[in-house]
């Protein structure tokens, strides 16, 4: 029995650790190594030290420099626009569904959750038809003459709409679970003290679901930084590369038609990872601080 006890934990943790090492740890380390090399994915990587980083961060003449900064700017725009919406809208829906007089709550919950299950490429095809100038519902209903995906800010609007449409369900479920866990006594005593619905939301609901709130914020931000499919499918990075996000440049460099430029691509990916790491660290710091007080 004792022998069993010794190894039992290994059997539980083992598979995950192996998968983590094989599919996450080793590729990440190799990716970081590749960022210090010149590599075309076929030959052996050639060590070039910090050259790739110098090119993308400091050599303003280089195409890769402008690609990196344009890609980073567009990624940040996407994060800035989408993350707040992906937090606020699901939260409002979750709170609304808690209202006593709302019926068929699980039906609504299902309807809002389902888009998240649809493959993003299939969804993008449907949405690009919805926004199509001649055939689309949007232009026919509102009588507009807009070519949505080829003019700004409409190109961003279409990307944000499809992202929000597909993404709010998951966060909403987490918020609903959080709100359900709040003791009813708190609401009752708040009512006795004369608190209205808005007061109850700010002073009872929000503080009680602080942890799920920050958790979703971290996860949604991380997901948003890795955005790729929506702009690729909806706008193909246009107009004039104003919706080309960093992941699209990285992919083109490493896996496009010509010889692969994996070194520079890896350097860009490492920089993206670093930005994400810093932002997540800040968010986690806030989360931990709030969790202990």
């Amino acid at each position: 029995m004792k022998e069993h006890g010794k190894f039992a934990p290994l059997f539980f943790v083992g598979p995950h650790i192996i998968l983590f090492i094989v599919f996450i740890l080793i590729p990440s380390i190799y990716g970081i190594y590749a960022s210090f090399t010149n590599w075309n994915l076929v030959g052996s990587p050639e060590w070039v030290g910090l050259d790739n980083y110098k090119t993308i961060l400091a050599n303003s003449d280089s195409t890769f420099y402008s690609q990196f900064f344009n890609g980073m700017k567009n990624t940040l725009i996407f994060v800035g626009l989408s993350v707040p919406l992906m937090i606020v809208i699901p939260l409002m829906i979750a709170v609304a569904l808690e209202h006593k007089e709302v019926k068929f709550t699980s039906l609504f919950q299902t309807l809002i959750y389902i888009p998240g299950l649809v493959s993003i490429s299939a969804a993008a095809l449907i949405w690009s038809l919805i926004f199509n100038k001649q055939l689309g519902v949007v232009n026919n209903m509102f009588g507009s003459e807009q070519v949505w995906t080829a003019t700004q800010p409409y190109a961003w609007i279409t990307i944000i709409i499809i992202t929000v449409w597909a993404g709010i369900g998951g966060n909403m479920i987490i918020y609903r679970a959080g709100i359900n866990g709040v003791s009813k006594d708190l609401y009752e005593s708040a009512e006795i003290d004369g608190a209205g619905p808005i007061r109850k939301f700010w002073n009872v609901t929000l503080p009680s679901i602080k942890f799920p709130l920050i958790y979703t914020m971290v996860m949604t931000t991380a997901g948003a930084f890795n955005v790729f499919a929506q702009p690729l499918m909806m706008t193909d990075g246009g107009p004039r590369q104003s919706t080309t996000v960093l992941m699209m440049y990285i992919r083109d460099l490493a896996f496009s038609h010509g010889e692969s430029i994996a070194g520079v691509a890896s350097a860009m990916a490492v920089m993206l990872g670093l930005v994400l790491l810093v932002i997540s660290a800040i968010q986690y710091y806030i989360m931990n601080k709030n969790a202990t007080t």
Partner: protein
Amino acid sequence: MKKLLMVMLTLVAVFLAACGGNDENTIQFWTPLTGDDGAYMDQLVEDYNATEPEIEVKHIITSDMYTKMYTVLNSGNGIPDLSIIHADRVPSFVKQDLLEPVTEIMEAQPELNADNYIEEAWSAGEVDGTQYTIPLDIHGSAMYYNQDLLEKYDVEHWLDDNVVTFDEMLSLQGQLEEGDYVLNDALLSWVLLAQIQNLGGDIQENGEPAVNTDAMRESIEAVKELNDAGLMTPYGEDGYLMFQSGNVLFSTDGTWSSTGHAQVEDLNFGVTNIYAFEPDTFHNRSSAHLFAMLSNEERSEEKEQGIADFLEFVRENSIEWAEAGQIVASQDVIESPEYENYMQSFFTSTQEQEDSLYIYTYEHYPYVQEAMDNYVADLVHGEMDINTGLEEMQKFVEDKVAEGSLDMENTELLDEDELEEELSEE
């Protein structure tokens, strides 16, 4: 219980062995042919296997094939015996020593020779006098016309010489009904690559990429003139769909689109050459699907014989491939009377037509096309200044070439260094 376990273990072992892929009795055949193309190729392979050859062919459709090729080449495991690659990959693959010449294949089946294939498709696989590929098809730009609209605007005579010119199209300026257009902007960079040939230009100069050239500028300006005259479908709109909905006279897309257009009810269409400046100088930018063997020392002679037999079967029977809308490369097929039923037979109907098919074989062509795909729509539609665009495109390609080829140079240097080290040790 024990028995069940044994059975399961055996099953797992069989499954793993089947995945191994180093089976001596099948030819692992990788293609990037997704969608309908893959189904037609499946049929060809199935027909071949039905002849009960000694070594059967196993067709594996691989999306993201080139990335996976790099992976297996790096690891040395699971390298396919045969694969289909695109013409524009050949120069860089050969330079990186990733392809094996098809010399022995040609010896095994003597009919696999230059005379039996369209010249442009055959020579796309030749580097420095060595043949590296056997062609399956040529596919590329084609211009579809809407017969009903040609009649409506009374311009059917444009097709009399099989070449629609810029001037002919410009003559319709101001005469179109609202919502109608003369041409769309589908596959625009290919159209421009054809114009560069029409003007006698090129995309390289002494091996260096030449994008910011007079020919490129003139081509872009000429197409922009069509756009400025209100003849081209507007920026960002789906011109391909607009052609199918019957609002556009000409659609400049690909040979393979004929199958898609044919599915549209009431679309009365035909195919002709990409528009040109003059009726007697015209080109259609093309690519080709080519059979190739990735470098692999473990490929046995028996397998090479099997590959040769399969390619000979394809040469004789690839009429099936015409279904996919592609211009079949085998002379036997395109000379057969059945082939005339296919729309794309237009492109091989005369020697002059065959000569119009042009494949760019410049080593860095993929970078040039990538640059064009990123920029030309903005330039033609006047969203961006042409001079700025040309400069950025040139820079784009040069930077990529510098970064992509540095590797090779460094490796060579390294080899020399190693050699010196070895010598000094002695």
